[in-house]
């Protein structure tokens, strides 16, 4: 079933960590297996934020050696970062296996798409290492458990930012692990993430086409395809809205998805309108969720909400 939620503060920022936690906790019944957040902080000029992990949560209980392996893997990641002339200017450990790094690329390096790709490829080459997100504003956090557990684990309350999307997952077609949890980062594109409720029926057709165009996928999840598809269209010159409009015609199946970029939040619904979405929109705030009860968690006063219609695409900017 899965639950998805999104919010954006228009022209301001807020405690999006706490807000998204409340929204996702209200959707816990739609998917108790894992919870994920894509939160967009205030960018620090020239710095990138990388969220990554070097093991799965379930690995921790599988033997005594994993603790040393985690240390070794992290050391190798650090070594490779420095070997690419990238400075680690900030380091936080969220869990035994998950980290948040603030990175500074060399001054003469624009941190362009190809540069990010080479960097990400080299880090992902370390055994067990998986980059969850890499961008100027995007921070992607996902783990097993409900929103309350994940939020506390990763200390998300108090996280100031402009917009966020989130997901509560009921595993149907892939494992209960962090890799299969949403949101998905559009590897290796800066700051693009997607959450999705539904199922794409022409996944393999588009994955083949996108792989032929040089894109790579980190999972076999159809939700990741939406992220890469949109990033590809944007790279080819589409605006976010144009890319999303095209996706409604080209992607087949039943779906409602939310996409976030560095400064925007978008929503698209398939032409059958088979998957739920409730929308609240005001001059300074937009909230969306699979169920209104999630929006009401952060807006207890009576508000006007409605269901977006079949084939509808909407984009809001911070």
């Amino acid at each position, binding site marked *: 079933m899965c639950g998805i939620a999104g919010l954006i503060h228009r022209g301001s920022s807020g405690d999006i960590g706490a807000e998204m936690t409340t929204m996702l906790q209200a959707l816990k019944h739609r998917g108790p297996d894992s919870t994920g957040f894509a939160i967009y902080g205030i960018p620090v000029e020239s710095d990138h934020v990388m969220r990554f992990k070097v093991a799965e949560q379930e690995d921790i209980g599988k033997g005594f050696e994993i603790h040393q392996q985690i240390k070794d893997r992290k050391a190798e990641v650090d070594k490779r970062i420095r070997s690419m002339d990238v400075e680690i200017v900030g380091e936080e450990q969220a869990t035994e296996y998950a980290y948040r790094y603030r990175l500074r690329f060399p001054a003469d390096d624009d941190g362009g798409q190809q540069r990010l790709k080479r960097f990400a490829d080299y880090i992902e080459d370390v055994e067990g290492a998986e980059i969850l997100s890499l961008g100027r504003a995007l921070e992607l956090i996902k783990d097993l458990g409900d929103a309350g557990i994940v939020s506390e684990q990763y200390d998300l309350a108090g996280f100031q930012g402009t917009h966020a999307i989130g997901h509560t997952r009921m595993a149907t077609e892939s494992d209960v692990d962090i890799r299969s949890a949403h949101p998905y980062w559009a590897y290796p594109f800066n700051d693009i993430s997607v959450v999705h409720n539904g199922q794409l029926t022409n996944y393999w057709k588009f994955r083949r086409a996108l792989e032929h165009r040089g894109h790579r996928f980190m999972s076999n999840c159809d939700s990741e395809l939406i992220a890469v598809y949109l990033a590809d269209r944007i790279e080819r010159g589409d605006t976010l809205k144009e890319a999303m409009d095209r996706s409604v015609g080209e992607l087949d199946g039943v779906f409602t998805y939310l996409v976030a970029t560095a400064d925007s939040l978008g929503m698209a619904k398939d032409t059958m*309108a088979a998957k739920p979405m409730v929308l609240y929109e005001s001059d300074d705030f937009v909230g969306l969720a699979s169920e209104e009860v999630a929006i009401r968690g952060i807006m207890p006063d009576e508000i006007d909400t*409605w269901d977006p*219609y079949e084939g509808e695409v909407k984009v809001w900017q911070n």
Partner: protein
Amino acid sequence: MAELSPDDRHKSHDMGLHAEQLAGRTQQVFFYPEEGDNYTYPEGFDVDFTKKATIDAAEMDGPEVNLRIRELMGEGYGHIVVQNPLAKHSLGVGILNRLKLDFEGSLGYFGCGLVDGPNIHIKGRVGWSCAENMMAGVVVIEKNAGSTFGAALRGGDLVCKGDVGSRTGIDMKGGTIIIGGRAGAFTGFMMQRGRIVILGDAGINLGDSLYDGTIFVGGTIASLGVDAVPGEMTDVEARWLENKLATYGLEAPNGVANLTKIVAGKQLWNYDNLEPTEKKIAL
């Protein structure tokens, strides 16, 4: 010897020529005749409409609210006001007697489902599947509604003064759904009986695969579904529409005479004259 016709067999049985007790499926009954014509639900309550009570649902979950409504009905309260419903799910369900029930806010999924008799007023919005399987009564929503609004409705009036989502009245078997605004895709999908009145625009595939029933549309229709065809408005229908809309303070945008009527074309396979064996060959 010639076979007796079924009529002759019944005559001979009535004359006492046959004493055997028939036990076939034709003799099977689910309800005892002693129940009488004025059947009431064992779970129904006699309530007094002058007795009013208020519930603040802010700190209660859905089942707690429903149980409280039930307790109050058991105490004879006929007018119950629920404050702060906060879009919680499955509120006001399974009410099987007359009751005036006011929600001072929005409901989540499956609100007011499986009801038979109450008059419910909702000041806010409702989520998916509001009033699913309603048998009788009135449910009025002041704002918008989610998808599958009035799914499998059997009777009563279900009124949304705002917009509704997709698949409104799916599998509807009776009653009336009135929508003040726009309706989403597949409205009236597989509708079998009853009426849907849409005063705004209708989405794609309106009345797809409807078996029977009637849909009236005041705005534009994005597209008709399979076997949904325009029909001709009768005077009786026009009068019925005038009265029904007036009851809820609504008006057709250009008068009821200009509503577009949609009915089943009845060209689907289940309406043809083929015998089952012939159908097998045809299929």
